């Protein structure tokens, strides 16, 4: 269990004081993947660096299993750090060491005997799918493979917590998904708590069960990923959800504009389906219900989250204004969320 209580971090700059983390309160349960999302400079790295004792909070406390990190002696802190593995955006591997030697580094630091180090490293290399590459150097690997080494290295001391600070931000979408899958697999296999820092909602949706949204050092919204996806409250959260929902938001806007030009009397709505709703023929029933109703399908998509699937459909309703309004009412009555984007 990780607990942030009223955590502040202030940096003294030349003339001013910068508050990088402002009154953060969070609880992370054992074994869960907890996402922290925010744009650059939001204070995400500062927050997790404090969790690893690399920075001390200006005020407030950070506890891991009831132990206040800031109150540990430097020796206790070093042994605590062995229980927290970290992976980084730029991998931070030693280029002078082979893959195997990189993975053995935390074990060397922990004073593990040579044979056990080899054994452990071999297992980890297998786990992250790099068998056969143990004697290569980091410069011979692709970004995704380097991150696999980073993950293996972070797991070497059997940590209880894994912190992933933008671990996929330097990778392409396909490789990102592979690394996220690996993190999920590790979470299930080792029952490890994972703190996933990112600025991509996609990564959160794919892996995390809970999420905290950070802006200007504060957590502005937090909760279950599924809930937040369905019902984002803050402007910034909506933006993140939309970015993920709709990587082609620009295209969509253009299409909507064009469709409205062609059918000025229609109404453009966005439907959101949750869970099993997405498997029911709601839309075809709606068309049958109202005689004059016709529709244009603009865009549709479905997303899997750890809490179930969420679908979205953008439609233009045509027909008498009365039927259009009734159709929206109908959707609400069957618990499909319908947001009017544009009224003709």
């Amino acid at each position, binding site marked *: 269990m990780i607990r942030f209580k009223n955590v502040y971090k202030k940096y003294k700059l030349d003339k001013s004081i910068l508050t990088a983390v402002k009154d953060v309160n969070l609880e992370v349960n054992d074994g869960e993947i907890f996402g922290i999302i925010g744009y650059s400079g939001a204070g995400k790295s500062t927050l997790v660096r404090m969790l*690893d004792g*690399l920075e001390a909070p200006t005020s407030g406390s950070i506890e891991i299993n009831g132990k206040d990190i800031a109150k540990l002696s430097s020796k206790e*802190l*070093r*042994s*605590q*750090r*062995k229980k*927290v593995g*970290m992976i*980084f955006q*730029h991998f*931070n*591997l*030693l*280029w*002078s*060491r082979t893959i195997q030697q990189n993975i053995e*580094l*935390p074990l*060397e*630091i*922990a004073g593990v005997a040579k044979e056990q180090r080899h054994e452990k490293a071999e297992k980890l290399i297998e786990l992250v799918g790099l068998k056969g590459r143990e004697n290569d*150097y*980091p*410069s*011979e690997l692709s970004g995704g493979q380097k991150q696999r080494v980073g993950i293996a290295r972070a797991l070497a*001391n059997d940590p209880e917590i894994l912190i992933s600070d933008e671990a996929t931000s330097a990778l392409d979408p396909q490789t990102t998904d592979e690394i996220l899958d690996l993190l999920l697999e590790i979470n299930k296999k080792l029952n490890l708590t994972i703190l996933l820092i990112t600025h991509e909602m996609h990564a959160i949706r794919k892996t995390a069960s809970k999420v905290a949204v950070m802006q200007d050092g504060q957590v502005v919204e937090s909760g279950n990923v599924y809930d937040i996806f369905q019902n984002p409250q803050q402007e910034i959260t909506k933006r993140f959800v939309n970015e993920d929902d709709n990587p082609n938001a620009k295209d969509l806007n253009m299409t909507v504009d064009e469709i409205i030009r062609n059918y000025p009397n229609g109404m453009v709505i966005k439907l959101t389906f949750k869970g099993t709703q997405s498997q029911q023929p709601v839309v075809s029933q709606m068309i049958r219900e109202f005689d004059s109703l016709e529709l244009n399908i603009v865009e549709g998509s479905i997303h899997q989250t750890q809490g179930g699937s969420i679908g979205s459909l953008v439609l233009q309703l045509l027909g008498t204004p009365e039927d259009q309004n009734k159709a929206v009412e109908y959707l609400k009555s069957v618990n499909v969320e319908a947001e009017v984007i544009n009224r003709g």
Partner: protein
Amino acid sequence: MANQGIQSYFQFNNVNWSAMRQATWETVWMTALSMIIVAVLGIILGLLLFESRNKSGFGWKIINWVVSFLVNVFRSIPFIILIVLLLPFTKDLVGTIIGPKAAIPSLVISAAPFYARMVEANFREVDDGVIEAVKSMGGTNWDVIFKVLLPESTPALISGATVTAISLISYTAMAGAIGSGGLGYLAYLDGFQSNNNTVTLVATVIILIIVLIVQTVGDLLVKKIDKRTL
């Protein structure tokens, strides 16, 4: 030797080859021995400069100030003046002010600060992220030094040492002016003062060959060790 034309460079029977061999050997070991001491001292001083930089403790500030001051002062004194300046110190330390042994203190004192600055710069080139990674594993400062700083900067340390060794070779030649022995001394005494241009030329060629060997060996080592790009 009245013969002062171009052909004066090629009177090879005027060369005392055994003296030449002796002088070559002296140059080689003066350079090698002082380079070893310079490497050790330079790495220690460079490490002190690196570690004390940007640290807030009072002790660290003093260390940084003292080491920087010494390094800057001794790096700025021209070698030929330094060697004269250090004569009394040399006499106390090695018991003599002539011969190859007597050249070592001034060689070390002039080259170590030079190398220390290079070492500091090399350590600063090491990726902060990697240092942070080792700290996040529970590593001590010693772990950072021995598992990150030194191994990650080894190629740079070697190429810096190559450059330093080559300037040491030219310093040994200058030290010849005050009787340190070696090829510089031979070129000065048997070549210049005895008007024997062939000796000067041969000494020059040998020095060039030594420099070339040092450079080649250094480059090969760096190439072998550097795994950054393959």
